[in-house]
């Protein structure tokens, strides 16, 4: 069990924080991806939803994700102070106290789940509550510091938002929403391991058992390639279950081939310099990849609705 030491040299006093610090606690960049995938899940779901309720649902999912981000920063403030990427976060920088972050995270989480339940249904609210619990407790408190497979299992937290969006409309969890979940779930390992490959010094200093630090670079590159193959195969599931048409299939094939090409080049890289360069390229590309895949799902759906895509 990990232990948080409060005496890390970053002493904040209550009332020092600015509004921007609270916004930073919500991890707005992570939130943007959550919002995007949740919107797609909501729009792809069969049936209708009142536009006001739809906007409130997305807002709840965003704030819920933000709340879990704040809880993550509350618990991880000791290791955030060590890593260059996270050193300027509000708690290690001394602008927000740990207590303030905890209270903020709990309030955001509680309100988002409650309002989502009242606005839509308790299946969606339950899924949101589980997502927050999974990210804040299962991933942050347990897996992150315990196993190099942390992001494989923890990735589920980031994969739930389209499922919540879907459930907000339908009130259930069905096969298409599980496919959306699987795409993000399998996308997470190659995405984060690519980051870990060129930031492994940071993770090592903080004592986080990321795969490159524990199993080594060759094993990480092999795992990235294996997960990339499974991911690209999974992106064709929407076609297999007749959820999407040729337009999505074509986009998935082209972007998937590029993903595999980068993963293969990373696997074949020999020296550290080129390995880090390709790892960075794969990390950046993987962000665009997920965005394009979900956008293609949406475009295809609209195309089918208008009769342009079969």
């Amino acid at each position, binding site marked *: 069990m990990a232990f948080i030491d409060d005496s890390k040299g970053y002493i904040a006093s209550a009332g020092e924080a600015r509004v921007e610090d609270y916004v930073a606690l919500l991890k707005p960049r992570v939130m943007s991806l959550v919002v995007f995938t949740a919107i797609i899940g909501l729009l792809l779901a069969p049936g209708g939803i009142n536009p006001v309720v739809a906007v409130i649902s997305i807002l709840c999912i965003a704030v819920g994700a933000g709340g879990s981000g704040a809880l993550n920063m509350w618990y991880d403030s000791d290791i955030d102070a060590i890593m260059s990427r996270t050193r300027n976060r509000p708690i290690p920088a001394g602008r927000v106290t740990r207590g303030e972050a905890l209270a903020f995270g709990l309030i955001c989480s509680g309100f988002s789940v409650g309002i989502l339940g009242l*606005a839509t249904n308790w299946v969606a609210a339950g899924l949101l509550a589980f997502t927050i619990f999974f990210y804040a407790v299962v991933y942050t408190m347990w897996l992150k510091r315990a196993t190099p497979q942390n992001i494989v299992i923890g990735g589920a937290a980031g994969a739930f938002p389209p499922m919540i969006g879907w459930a907000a409309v339908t009130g259930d969890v069905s096969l298409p929403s599980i496919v959306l979940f699987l795409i993000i779930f399998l996308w997470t390992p190659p995405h984060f391991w690519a980051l870990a490959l060129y930031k492994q010094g940071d993770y090592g200093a903080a004592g986080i058992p990321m795969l490159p630090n524990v199993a080594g670079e060759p094993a990480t590159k092999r795992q990235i390639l294996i997960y990339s193959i499974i991911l690209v195969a999974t992106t064709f599931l929407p076609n297999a279950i007749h959820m999407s048409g040729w337009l999505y299939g074509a986009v998935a094939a082209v972007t998937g081939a590029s993903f595999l090409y980068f993963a293969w080049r990373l696997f074949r890289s020999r020296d550290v310099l080129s390995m880090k360069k390709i790892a960075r390229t794969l990390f950046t590309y993987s962000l665009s990849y997920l965005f394009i895949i979900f956008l293609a799902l949406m475009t295809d759906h609209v195309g089918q609705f208008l009769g342009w895509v079969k």
Partner: protein
Amino acid sequence: MTTPVVPLTEDEARRRRQRRNSIALGLVLGFLVLLFYALTIVKMGPGIFTQRDL
């Protein structure tokens, strides 16, 4: 004529920060009121505006 720039004292800076935070909190609360109002109207349906004889 230009006014000389007087540096803020720590106490003043803190007061300004707290004032900004209070405004932000007020806006959030106001937004929540509107949100619950809109949600109530949507949940009850447009019939809420129709006058009925009791």
